[in-house]
């Protein structure tokens, strides 16, 4: 027993060193695996407070660019006003207005909330964005985030009462479904962790005719509302081993200066996710598979 104590005293620093290493590696691997950690809630509140202080100064220097972008968006929205069109076929149009059900029985599908980016990086391989809205303001996991000009930015992965964290499209584990605007073919986008200006798009069959500059939009299969721009094709690489193209996309959102963003909630998301789960269970269950 005495020897054990002597041993511990002799190698106390080494043992402390190994223990601290173990703690940091444990934090590293559990956090990145589940995107959640026990201590992150309050730490998020503290870093969020410091970040919003900093942001209030930083905002001042970006007012001009932001104004131009807002103006652009307002302009395109004004173009969509029903008054601009002579004839509207209401039965064919999907109406999105501010209450869940209106008197005509139109169903609301997407709810838009505005938020401000208070911290954002593009340097790391796993880039996260912090927003100044949290669960108190109705933000939930899996909501999508669009830039102020309507281009795709990322998906909410963690919320604290007043702040939330977004997995940027510039994250090596991010994988989102998208669609080619011209042909309607579905593909998926990911990031190779290198250049923050370009994303990689996969699963577009070689039968699709693609030219440089083609637009890629968000798809109905993802958390994003469909039809918003993700990027444009910058380079077309034919993958020789498969029947698919690998495309390099120039991102539509400028990740270097994100300021104001929209957080979009898909109202039916939980129900849809549950239906997916149930279907999977039904198919995988050997008892139901006797036909």
């Amino acid at each position, binding site marked *: 027993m005495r020897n054990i104590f002597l041993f511990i005293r002799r190698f106390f*620093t080494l043992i402390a*060193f190994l223990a601290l290493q173990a*703690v*940091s590696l444990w*934090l590293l691997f559990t956090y*990145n695996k589940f995107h959640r950690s026990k201590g992150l809630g309050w730490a998020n509140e503290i870093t969020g407070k410091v970040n919003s202080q900093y942001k209030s100064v930083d905002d001042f220097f970006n007012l001009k660019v932001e104004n131009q972008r807002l103006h652009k968006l307002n302009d395109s929205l004004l173009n969509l006003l029903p008054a601009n069109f002579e004839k509207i076929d209401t039965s064919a149009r999907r109406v999105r207005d501010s209450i869940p059900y209106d008197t005509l029985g139109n169903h609301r599908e997407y709810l838009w909330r505005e938020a401000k980016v208070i911290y954002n990086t593009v340097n790391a*391989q796993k880039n996260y964005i912090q927003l100044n809205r949290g669960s108190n303001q109705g933000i939930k996991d899996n909501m999508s985030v669009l830039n102020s000009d309507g281009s795709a930015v990322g998906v909410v992965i963690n919320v604290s009462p007043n702040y939330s964290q977004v997995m940027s499209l510039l994250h090596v584990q991010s994988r989102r479904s998208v669609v080619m605007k011209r042909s309607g073919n579905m593909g998926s986008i990911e990031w190779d962790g*290198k250049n923050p200006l370009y994303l990689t798009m996969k699963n577009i069959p070689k039968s699709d005719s693609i030219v440089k500059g083609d637009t890629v939009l968000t798809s109905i299969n993802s958390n994003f509302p469909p039809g918003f721009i993700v990027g444009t094709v910058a380079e077309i690489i034919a993958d020789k081993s498969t029947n698919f193209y690998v495309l390099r996309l120039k991102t539509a959102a400028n990740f*270097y200066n994100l300021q104001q963003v929209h957080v979009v909630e898909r109202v039916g998301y939980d129900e849809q996710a549950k239906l997916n789960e149930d279907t999977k269970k039904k198919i995988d269950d050997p008892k139901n598979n006797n036909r």
Partner: protein
Amino acid sequence: MSDLVRNIIRFAFFILVQVYLLNKLHLHQYIIPYIYYLFILWLPFSISRFSLLIIGFLTGLTLDYFSMQIGVHAAACTLIAYIRPFVIQVLAPKDSSEFNYREPSPRAMGWTPYLVYALILTIFHHFYMMLLQYLQFGDFMDFVIKVISTTGISMLLIITVELLFPRKMKFRTNTA
């Protein structure tokens, strides 16, 4: 100003500079300037090895929470806090009473030993941090290039800081 107060101010300063200045500079995907660990390099000679470890761990963890990659910097900082006393021991003059200054600095150690000391700890810090990132996702050549280029820019920053802000060094006296 006492050592404690001075180091607390330094800690806040280095973290803020790293988070709000250097992490926001988008120089190149391979060149990410790091300077915050200079805080650990500047801690007094007299600090005990155990408290050095704890301070290193907390420094890294603070930066981790700001950059939202929990554990990476904490592990790297703990490593350099652990090997710091060994490096100082190797570089120190034989007669330890010649160590008249409180903290490592070019004036206290001489330029060459100080730069060797900074270079060794910088390489260890960057190598370990990039290794942890590479193990999760990455490309081997990227990893090697990143370690070399980031070490280069960090050494450049350290030399600049030492030249621009020479610290007023106090002699270690019995009364202090």
